């Protein structure tokens, strides 16, 4: 996403720096964003069997880690952790690009229709492939794909369509294989697609969020593509064709103004949070949107300097409260 720029005056700049400074001091040592130097003991989350260290250079077989803010990456090497034996360590580049894993839910855009497959752009070094056989047919019957199906691929997905799918695996050349077999995957319409840096979306249990109170679908793709759109009922496959005709009767089928307001608010919340560099979770997005509603901030004023600074301050307060509660509970 192109960078948003917020014109801050002097007081706003001071407030923002104070909030960001507080957030940095609050960041717990065990957070994955910690930076380590040589001979530090790296705190390990006991659940993960793999230590993930970003932005460091690991020298093979040497029991040291040279870590820093550099963008160099090394291979998977072993790092000795004091008193706990060896652990496998994955060293990766500072993650602006998406790093796919099997089972990730991603949102992509179709750029090409090739024989028996679609190619999708997903903010990765290579385009992902969605095979025709990995896609449910419109009539819902499980059968072998015929030549007629291949000719009708365009009726399922066209160029530039936004598609939600799951990573099935890697091909031999490193590109991704996708599948969209379940009802919740498929074409996304009636909404907007936002692009954020991929590292702001962490892997969670749920990536599809149906916000009932707003009648909005929010899909946090692990590749940094975020879809905010009108809620679509998981419907029978046969209605797919009818929907196409409906789109041509435009004025009647525009999204209602209420839903549109919620979609715009949530989208702006995502934009502000990604500009601040905060990890995007559904709770944070909803909180930001509701805070803007309760403080009567106009939707387009959410992209202004004042709301930007307020969001940073709010997050600093929230984390401070969290830390205080944790310390109080001990």
């Amino acid at each position, binding site marked *: 996403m192109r960078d948003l720029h917020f014109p801050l005056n002097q007081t706003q700049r001071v407030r923002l720096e104070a909030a960001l400074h507080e957030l940095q001091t609050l960041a717990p040592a065990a957070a994955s964003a910690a930076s380590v130097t040589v001979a530090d003991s790296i705190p390990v989350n006991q659940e993960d069997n793999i230590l993930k260290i970003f932005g460091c250079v690991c020298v093979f077989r040497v029991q040291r880690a040279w870590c820093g803010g550099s963008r160099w990456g090394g291979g998977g090497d072993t790092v000795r952790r004091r008193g706990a034996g060896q652990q496998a360590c994955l060293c990766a580049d500072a993650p602006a690009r998406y790093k796919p894993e099997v089972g990730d839910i991603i949102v992509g855009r179709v750029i090409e229709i090739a024989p028996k497959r679609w190619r999708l752009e997903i903010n990765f070094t290579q385009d992902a492939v969605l095979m025709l056989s990995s896609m449910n047919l419109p009539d819902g019957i499980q059968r072998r794909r015929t030549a007629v199906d291949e000719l009708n691929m365009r009726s399922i997905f066209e160029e530039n369509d*936004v598609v939600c799918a799951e990573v099935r695996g890697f091909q031999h050349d490193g590109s991704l294989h996708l599948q969209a077999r379940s009802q919740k995957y498929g*074409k*996304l319409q009636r909404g907007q697609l936002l692009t954020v840096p991929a590292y702001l979306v962490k892997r969670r249990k749920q990536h599809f969020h149906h916000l009932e109170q707003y009648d909005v679908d929010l899909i946090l793709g692990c590749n940094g593509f975020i879809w905010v759109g009108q809620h679509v009922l998981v419907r029978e496959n046969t209605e797919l064709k009818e929907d196409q005709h409906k789109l041509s009767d435009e004025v009647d089928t525009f999204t209602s103004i209420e839903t549109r307001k919620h979609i715009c608010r949530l989208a702006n919340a995502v934009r502000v949070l990604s500009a601040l560099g905060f990890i995007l979770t559904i709770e944070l997005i909803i909180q930001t949107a509701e805070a803007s509603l309760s403080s009567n901030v106009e939707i387009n004023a959410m992209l202004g300097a004042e709301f930007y600074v307020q969001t940073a301050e709010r997050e600093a307060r929230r984390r401070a409260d969290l830390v205080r509660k944790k310390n109080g509970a001990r």
Partner: protein
Amino acid sequence: MVGLSEGEKHFIRGGIAQDLRADGRTKLQFRPVTVETGVIPQANGSARVRLGATEVIASVKAELGKPTVLHPDKGKVSIYVDCSPTAAPIFEGRGSEDLSAELSVALQRCLLGGKSGAGAAIDLSSLIVLEGKACWDLYIDGLVVSSDGNLLDALAAAIKVALSDTGIPKVNVSLNAETDGEPEVDVSDEEFLQFDTSSVPVIVTLTKVGKHYIVDATSEEESQMSSAVSVSVNRRGQICGLTKRGGAGLDPTVIFDMISVAKHVSQRFISLLDSEIAAAEAVMDE
């Protein structure tokens, strides 16, 4: 420019029809404007204007030259726009030539006035040093750094701010009576003449999508346009230039309506820019 799916296009059109665009703006609202002056120290004047994610830089350089024979009492101004390849992949190599030419011509039309020099935004006779012999040539260059729609408005605003930041060195001319040719010109380093930019117009582009017009379109909204009319208005509400883009034809009543909307919107934009210019000058004086 990344393509848009039918669903997204439908959503954009719906938003414009319902007066609630994708980022929450109404049809006649501008994105937040950021203005900085003096970004290019070697130039006589420069400015950077950010309109949302669109970013442009304008610079003004003044050089001594000879006035044309037709207008011995006027200086010369030339405007040229370049699109940096960092703005969009299609701008690489010669891809940006068409767009740059179109933007340059539109700006020249709006700011430079007619062939006789009448109606120019800058008073060209203020650029004269010695009638018939020496004058200032202003070279105004615009650079598109990041492109997210509405380049023309951003460039016109940047040029206006850059001109307000421009200082023309004072010159002492000594006429040597024996050599009838070139006078001796002594360019002073200290004293500068500032331009009065209150009469420099701004450009407001109205993009027609369906039956509605929007101001300050993003590149996604521009992909949905049928036509666009750029109106250049000065502070007194006078039209200084008019450019139409896009293949669809427009009814004359529609054009008149668009002009009146543009006049109304431009007054707000002009006062916003003027306050930003004043703020930037205040910062510089500190």
